[in-house]
């Protein structure tokens, strides 16, 4: 079960905005999913290591040699607002 207030809090963390009627729909949907996954919280898994990566990998190293990459122009070519090699954004708060 996840409350309406919690949904609003999580939306702020996720940088998402929902209208009131969306929140009405989302709260029971998320609750249903959270209740379903809740079955894991009830398992006793103490002593088991968590797996973050299913295939054993060692640290991967390579020589620190420069290789050609994107130009600044290419890297910024999809920017919605670009000026003199910089991304333009609205003022902060």
């Amino acid at each position: 079960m996840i409350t309406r207030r919690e949904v609003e809090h999580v939306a702020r963390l996720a940088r998402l905005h929902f209208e009131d009627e969306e929140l009405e729909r989302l709260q029971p949907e998320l609750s249903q999913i959270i209740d379903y996954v809740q079955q894991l919280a009830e398992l006793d898994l103490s002593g088991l290591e968590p797996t973050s990566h299913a295939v054993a990998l060692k640290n991967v190293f390579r020589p620190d040699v420069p290789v050609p990459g994107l130009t600044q122009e290419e890297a910024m070519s999809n920017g919605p607002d670009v000026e003199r090699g910089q991304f333009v954004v609205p003022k902060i708060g």
Partner: protein
Amino acid sequence: MHLDEATVLDLTAHRCRELLQTGEISSTELTRLYLDRIAAVDDSVKSYLLVDEQGALAQAAAVDAKPRSERKPWEGVPIGLKDIFCVKGMETTCGSRILKGYHPPYDATIVAKLREAGLVFLGKLNMDEFAMGSSTENSAFQTTHNPWDLDRVPGGSSGGSAACVAAAEAPWTLGTDTGGSIRQPASLCGVVGLKPTYGAVSRYGLVAFASSLDQIGPLTRDVKDAAALLDLIAGRDPRDSTSIGLPEPVGIPIRTDLEGLRFGVIKEFVGDACEAGVREVFDSTVDTILQLGGVCEEVSLPSVERGIAAYYLIAPSEASSNLARFDGVRYGHRTSGAADLYDMYTHTRSEGFGPEVKRRIMIGTYALSAGYYDAYYAQAQRTRTLIIRDFESAFERFDYLISPTSPSVAFKIGEKTADPLAMYLSDLCTIPVNLAGLPGISLPGGFSEGLPVGVQIIGPHFSEKGMLGAAHAIEQKLRLPLVPPLAEVAR
């Protein structure tokens, strides 16, 4: 030899290669054949988001200008790509409004490999937005229809890639599989779908969904093509530090018997969870395996029933982190008229993402938020360890494990959209394979209600070569008629 629309219907990539090598057809003629086919049927199927007619014909003309003796083996064979791969200069949306108009300044590693091999890119294929879905109904742009019954879904998230091959709008395509997104649509569309071992294929230039699960793989008309396409894309890549490659090329599968091979039938995937028609096809595939000299015995993997719960914590958690990059600053959609930066982020993301993507970002953000991490994400990762152990102990007794790929045949468009959890539960048989990083293949096993039913073979890590050999033996024994009625009508 004259190739017409009827010939294209069951043309494999291998056959395309032969026709090109013997000079019976030019790459331009072959490419034109597929472009004509797309023009004829894609209004009904809607598998392509973008058809690059000019680019494809230019690539084909360049191949034709070379003497045949100087061409590489697959040069001039066309292919379709899921719209999740970056292709330099070609719009890549990932099925999302937030990436509408995005033109990648670079090629994904697999795209660069295919380019180097001389393949012709027909275009980009529809998908669930950010690969989140099991029906392709979550695409922001269009719903793809199953060529076997246009009222039904093709599966997802690589539904465009599967429907495209089934409808013969490309000889083969590439998709991605995070929880079954190659195998399930392959099953529902009657084609072969291979999810390689985690790490077999580089993911550089793939739009990331859940990084500990995502893997790229082929959708094809037969097992031989799946093997060939895997060899074209596999390999370690310095630009993806999780990539390992394959121990050796898989080569062309030739096996026609299953003598000496032991198959474990996963008990948890064949019970009441499956439709009766799917179980019937699966049981007859077990008989086929026995006829070919293989041994089949039931095996229990008790923890896999927790797979969906673990997956729907791990995948959304990783997605909520991966999708944080879509903020309207460096690429993609940006809202207009925002008062400040926070407002810009929030409205850009709210306008750009669709409902399912928002749902998963919300679940992931919740699961990772302060106070919940241990109860949800860490617990899901421990469950993952349990699932891996169950598979490991099963592989001590069996060479391969088998199950239906999907518990049902293709469902009706709109049937499951109202209930997100019901849609999640349809991924029961495929999800644990991703959690354990194993290779899995879906191949057509038969029909129920006139719709294709796929059978899944699962192998130990990096067992693709043997797994494809076993799949080939079953395929050759079954010899199913795999041309959908849509194709018959167009004929």
